[in-house]
């Protein structure tokens, strides 16, 4: 058995996926407690620096959850988030970070089951991947 408990940071949009998580809670749908939610006003608010920072500070996986295409409260925030996500993935690969450690998905406010599903799947995936172990300049000191 794999006892590893991954740390996953999920940036969730206030208007959709965060509300979806709320609904999942009210419906008593269990989802992995390895996933820690951070509420943002829009997936477009997720600065790529947040994602890098999460990995640097020890996250084994990062999720960005936003409104379905066409449903963003700020019109195109989610589209920008998607493009940044594509760029981030391409860049993170060069740092040896597995593609599956960063995931973007769309979850609406009513989609409590979908929220439960994507979050649990991510927790499973990252659990299988194991700890990220970023060793780089993160430990400073010239060694």
């Amino acid at each position: 058995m794999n006892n590893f408990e991954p740390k996953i940071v999920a940036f969730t949009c206030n208007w959709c996926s965060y509300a979806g998580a709320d609904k999942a809670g009210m419906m008593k749908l269990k989802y992995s407690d390895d996933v820690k939610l951070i509420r943002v006003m829009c997936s477009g608010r997720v600065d790529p620096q947040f994602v890098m920072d999460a990995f640097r500070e020890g996250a084994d996986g990062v999720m960005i959850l936003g409104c379905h295409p066409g449903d963003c409260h700020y019109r195109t925030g989610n589209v920008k988030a998607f493009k940044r996500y594509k760029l981030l993935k391409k860049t993170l690969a060069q740092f040896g970070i597995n593609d599956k450690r960063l995931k973007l998905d769309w979850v609406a406010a009513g989609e409590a089951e979908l929220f439960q599903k994507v979050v649990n799947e991510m927790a499973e995936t990252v659990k299988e991947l194991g700890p990220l172990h970023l060793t780089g300049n993160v430990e400073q000191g010239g060694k």
Partner: protein
Amino acid sequence: MAKPKVAFYWCASCGGCGETVVDLADKILDVVAAVDIILWPIAMDFKYKDIRAMEDGSIAVSFINGAVRTEEQKEIAELLRKKSGLVVAFGSCSSLGGIPALANLTSKKKIFERSYLKSPTVVNPEGVVPKTKSKVDGYELALPEFYESVYKLNDVIDVDYYLPGCPPTPDLIVNAVNAILEGKLPPKGAILSPDKSLCNSCDRNESKPEDVAISEIKRVIDVEIDPEKCFLAQGIICMGPATRDGCGASCINGNMPCTGCFGPTDSCKDQGAKMIGTLGAILEGDEEETIDKALDGLVDPAGTFYRYGLSASMLGSARKEEEDE
């Protein structure tokens, strides 16, 4: 009154930073006359033992260029720190890791393999690789350790000021030296170049449309560059939005895009992430296919976004373990 003592040192660097001091030409003569240079390996002969014999804090200022890749570089940086009142990180490598830090995308193991065993120009049937200690004819020989990653200067010692640029421009250097001589320095830790983005002082900024939208990322070798128009608007990656001002837009004036050598501004924690943010906002289309196609032209994102700044990036370097599966 004794002249202030000044040291110049190089760690992992190309020598360009030393060259730029010489390029100060007539301006350097005033500097040379005003100070007493006690260490400058690129131009004059000095011995480390003389530096060791000096009193702590007796060097007014040490300008250290280059990144820290080896044990020797760390040792001399520490020595100069002890002997100096001020330490200035001179240039991109010292401030941010610079070009040598691109090696952080690979590992020491792979570098040794390539350089000493596998490169087509290497003949090494016995597979000899450098070791920190070896015995030859009864003598023990020592080489400085080659570190796993390339570090910026402030990873190994305390740094007072930073002069950005690959290399820093003569104007910035002269301003810094004068500020030191006149005791008119900004607060400790300051980067001695304006804290705004390069686009602010770029002549092409005017030509940038309100809503830049690019459908394809182009490489400079594949296109004829319009000498008036903003590079980003031409689909060519220009690091201007994520890069600190102060070079006088040298590359832009030579009709080449900015590659980011001045590093980020104070408010930005990661130059590459900032550029990803900017690009994400201006790429055209919303279908995955269109986006993938546009990104085809971006063959080396990490090397483009962190050309000079890997040691200063949030991730610092690639994972050293073999595969992340």
